């Protein structure tokens, strides 16, 4: 081998080593994120933990399969189905659902809770957009770590995307990316794309369990008009309106009612109502992190919601919610979700006393804001092993 050839192979080897190092360092972080298991301490109200694949067989063995927590009361009553992390980059939903799972005691009726509705999306992220891979909630026993997910399922689990997503069964043409968005694939089908099998599983739960109310918890940008609200179709609007008025009067926060559009298909608040007896509600709380004109997308911004650019836009009247130096903290968002869910159940029980739902030990808005979200999470190290679910 002459000198020139030897030099060429040295350069190639250096390049190869550098690229391998980049690939291993970057790849390991993404791999660890995808396989990170978050402990959930089963609270006193949980009577059964099932898998969504028990209701939609096509999910078995896939990353889209997810835990379903049943909290059955001592007495029969109404049934409420709570879905969180339909969009896994809106984590106030997940935190609110975990408060219910770890603390709620059901006296009458049944709660069915899926904390990671789009489990695949919770294992997907946007490092290219500067999303943090994780965020932590401080608790009395240390920080509880959560995966920061993405809006859509991971392409590792569902691929390729079509040029246009043709919604089933209405055949409406939707954006290609929405084939991986579990708030566009309702009501789903047993043998459709993976995300349609997820929503199909949820529809099966609602049909088999005769669920009365379904609550899909989200977060939305402060610059998006459908934020800080309850979205409801005609069949749910009365309960939604009473809830909105009550939380405003009693607890002092806004959560107005938006009507579910009948011409826009695939959304939970549309299809659940149209394809089952269940009354759907979709909750939105403002999440400044998702707004486009913000500073860096840090875990701090995700938690405190404070951003100077949004503050400036707020002064110019460009936001759809009130916004000041205090930002829009995670505590406020989670507290709103807890209160609105509890109030929906109270209003439902008032309207149909024979299907009363009675849940205690879940904090309302003021308590969550005062104590912080972490106050309601239990130390998995101190809990019995059979009381911890790794999600």
């Amino acid at each position, binding site marked *: 081998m002459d000198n020139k050839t030897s030099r060429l192979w040295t350069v190639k080897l250096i390049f190869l080593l550098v690229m391998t190092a980049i690939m291993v360092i970057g*790849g390991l972080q993404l791999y660890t994120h995808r396989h990170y298991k978050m402990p959930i301490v089963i609270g006193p109200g949980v009577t059964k933990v099932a898998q969504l694949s028990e209701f939609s067989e096509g999910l078995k063995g896939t990353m889209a399969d997810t835990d379903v927590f049943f909290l059955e009361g001592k007495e029969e009553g109404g049934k409420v189905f709570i879905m969180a992390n339909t969009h896994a980059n809106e984590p106030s939903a997940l935190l609110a659902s975990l408060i219910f799972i770890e603390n709620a005691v059901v006296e009458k009726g049944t709660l069915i809770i899926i904390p990671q509705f789009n489990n695949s999306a919770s294992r997907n992220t946007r490092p290219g957009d500067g999303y943090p891979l994780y965020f932590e909630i401080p608790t009395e026993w240390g920080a509880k770590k959560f995966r920061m997910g993405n809006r859509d399922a991971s392409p*590792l689990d569902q691929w*390729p995307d079509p040029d246009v997503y043709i919604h089933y069964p209405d055949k409406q043409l939707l954006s290609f990316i929405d084939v991986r968005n579990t708030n566009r694939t309702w009501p789903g089908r047993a043998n459709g794309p993976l995300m349609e099998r997820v929503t199909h599983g949820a529809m099966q739960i609602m049909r088999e369990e005769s669920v009365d109310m379904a609550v899909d918890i989200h977060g939305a940008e402060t610059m998006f008009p459908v934020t800080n609200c309850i979205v409801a179709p005609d069949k749910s609007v009365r309960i939604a309106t009473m809830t909105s008025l009550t939380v405003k009067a009693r607890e002092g926060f806004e959560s107005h009612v938006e009507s579910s559009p009948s011409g826009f298909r695939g959304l939970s608040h549309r299809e659940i109502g149209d394809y089952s007896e269940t009354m759907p509600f979709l909750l939105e709380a403002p999440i400044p992190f998702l707004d486009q004109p913000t500073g860096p997308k840090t875990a701090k911004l995700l938690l405190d919601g404070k951003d100077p650019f949004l503050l400036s836009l707020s002064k110019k009247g460009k936001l759809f919610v009130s916004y000041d130096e205090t930002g829009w903290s995670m505590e406020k968002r989670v507290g709103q979700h807890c209160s609105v869910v509890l109030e929906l159940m109270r209003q439902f029980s008032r309207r149909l006393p024979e299907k009363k739902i009675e849940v205690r030990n879940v904090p309302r808005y003021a308590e969550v804001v005062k104590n912080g979200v972490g106050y309601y999470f239990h130390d998995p190290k101190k809990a019995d092993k059979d009381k911890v679910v790794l999600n």
Partner: protein
Amino acid sequence: MPLIMIIYYVISAFIAGMLVWNFIREKKNVNDMLLYLLVLIPLVLRILRVK
């Protein structure tokens, strides 16, 4: 895993193989060598089911 997804992995592996082959064969242009390796990264991460 659906058939179409398996086909995508086969296509990814084929393109990755072509890139490695071109990287090995490249004798002069350092920019091209780097380019082959850069393009290779997402394909390898997909084949290994990392991202």
